[in-house]
């Protein structure tokens, strides 16, 4: 009801008052936003501090040896995190190895080749994958993926690529490779969605210029579209990597949870996040708890290092792509 009076023509004084009010609103708004912006880094700093405090006992006991030893014995209170770090890095790497070509392929298809009517529905369906809770992925992995891998895919790999050390040894089902595959499925929607947005942002003049020079559509994508979008695509991959490194539930349900470093991808492994999730609730000894906090601290460090490395990569790639577009 009051809406009509307020949208009516205001007098000059009313306008000034309105601006005054609006200014006050601006100040409050700015204050709130600043508070929000400060709150997040503070929370992060607090979290890191807490992790460090929690892991002090283990850091004092094991020091850097924690990073290089493999025993994990809660009874003897002897802890080493090397297999966990190895498992986290390898499973995430495997996940990306599978997910990146697939999701970029889908993104390119959707922006460059797919019929208009198909673009939105497919993008929407893939986006839906991101909304599935990870425990559901884990259950699906146990009931559907693992039996399929054990009876069909793994024996096939062993028969064809068995000369490689990665595909040797007994096949159980739960394994590093199974975890990598589930991670690939889980990070795909992220890489695909962001990759698609990035490709959509490539100006049409890029494509038209390439086509006008006589490039086929394939050549236009490779020479004009992808180089332009390079830094954005790397960003999409990093988003996926961040998710893969921290994924817990689905991985622990499929990886076999064995503190061991094996060359074979069919062998069970373990990740940092999985170990914390598995043991934290029942850890009784102080040193055991502290070792788990240490693992959490390391996971945080690994994430920071990987992300920093990726930023560096983006930065270099972005420089490269600017030069590339200049050369074009």
């Amino acid at each position: 009801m009051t809406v009509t009076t307020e949208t009516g023509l205001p007098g000059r004084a009313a306008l000034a008052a309105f601006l005054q009010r609006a200014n006050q609103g601006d100040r409050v708004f700015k204050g709130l936003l600043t508070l929000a912006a400060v709150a997040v880094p503070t929370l992060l700093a607090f979290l890191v501090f807490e992790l460090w405090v929690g892991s002090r006992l283990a850091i004092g006991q094991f020091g850097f040896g924690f990073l290089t030893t493999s025993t994990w014995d809660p009874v003897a209170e002897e802890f080493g995190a090397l297999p966990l770090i190895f498992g986290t890095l390898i499973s995430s790497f495997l996940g990306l190895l599978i997910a990146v070509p697939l999701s970029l392929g889908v993104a390119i298809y959707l922006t460059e080749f797919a019929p208009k009517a198909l673009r939105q529905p497919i993008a929407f369906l893939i986006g839906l994958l991101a909304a599935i809770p990870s425990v559901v992925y884990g259950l699906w992995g146990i009931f559907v993926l693992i039996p399929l891998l054990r009876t069909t895919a793994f024996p096939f790999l062993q028969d064809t690529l068995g000369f490689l050390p990665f595909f040797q040894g007994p096949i159980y089902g739960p394994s590093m490779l199974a975890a990598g595959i589930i991670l690939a499925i889980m990070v795909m929607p992220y890489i695909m969605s962001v990759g698609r947005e990035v490709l959509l942002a490539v100006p049409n003049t890029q494509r038209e210029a390439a086509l006008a020079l006589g490039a086929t559509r394939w050549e236009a994508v490779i020479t004009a579209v992808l180089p332009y979008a390079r830094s954005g695509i790397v960003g999409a991959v990093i988003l996926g990597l961040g998710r893969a490194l921290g994924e817990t539930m689905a991985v622990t349900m499929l990886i076999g949870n064995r503190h061991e470093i094996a060359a074979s991808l069919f062998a069970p492994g373990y990740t940092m996040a999985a170990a914390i999730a598995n043991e934290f609730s029942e850890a009784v000894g102080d040193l055991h708890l502290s070792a788990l906090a240490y693992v959490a601290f390391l996971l945080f460090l690994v994430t920071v290092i990987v992300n920093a490395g990726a930023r560096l990569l983006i930065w270099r790639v972005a420089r490269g792509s600017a030069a590339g577009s200049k050369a074009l």
Partner: protein
Amino acid sequence: MPSLTPRLALGIVLFTLACGGSDRPSPGSGGDRAPRRGAGLTGAGATFPNPIYTKWFDAYAKETGVRINYQSIGSGGGIRQFTEGTVDFGATDGPMTDEQIAAVQGNVMHIPTVIGAVVLTYNLPSLGATKLRFDSAAIADIYLGRLTKWNDPRLARLNPRVKLPDRDIIVVHRSDGSGTTYVFVDYLSKVSTEWGKKVGKATSVNWPVGLGGKGNEGVTQQVKQTEGAIGYVELIYAISNQLPYATVKNAAGKDVDATLATATAAAAGIDLPPDTDFRVSITDAQGADAYPISSFTWLLIRKEDPDSARARSIRDFAVWMLQPAGQRMAADLHYAPLPVPIIELVQRRVGLAADAASP
């Protein structure tokens, strides 16, 4: 329109606040119905007895109006929160160690509530409905990685009428820290000196061999899907999922099938002194019918409590759950009830603790 949106937002905020506000009085009004001092009790700990605890607390609230909140965060968390004094009582599947008891200046009492059993489930389709038989040495050697074939002569001797396949034994264990693991390795530590020396007992251990499955369901799926696999799960879980499980030769040399009755028999087979603190392991128990991989699960309460109202409140509940009606509820959910002599002993001891708490 633009000025309507903030108004709408404000309206939503006010509405939410109003709902929040109206939420407040409802617990109070519930309390009015059954007048009671104090708000109720909070506890935290073991996940294994969570279904029966939930059922007990629910029935107890209906009967007496005393509400008990229980968080099944795991035994380790239960002991920790009890030690820090953030809960009124704790719950655990493995008893507190002497150091942990020293950390609370000895002010803790273990009250057994029900009995659980751990069974060995396996996947050997060629066996059909025949039950496998194990003895302690065979189980220990399988989990030590020393007995690796199903047709090993030692297993064949234990199962003379069964044709065992020439397959590798694939060992599965729990990956998450768990009271089930504690009971199982407690048994192995008792029956095998090598296990005791090399691995020991805790809620999670450094397994010599095998794959880790998360939770009972993780172990079960791994066993179900892999021919030749063996794993351990809680009896209740095996019964409700109709898993095959082996009989185990007990200390008296008899092959015993795991049932509620044989788990109760394991507790009946131990002699408790009148001043016991109930921190007793009943694995590998004496008694002809005792199933050897059985264990109590405990509530942790303070022996002496400055808050006498709280002490009385917990005591009241403990007495209530030990009544035949409470123990029947346990049996309905496939938890093995405590044997009568132990119930009587617990009742006496709880009474003593309460007297000491409220002079």
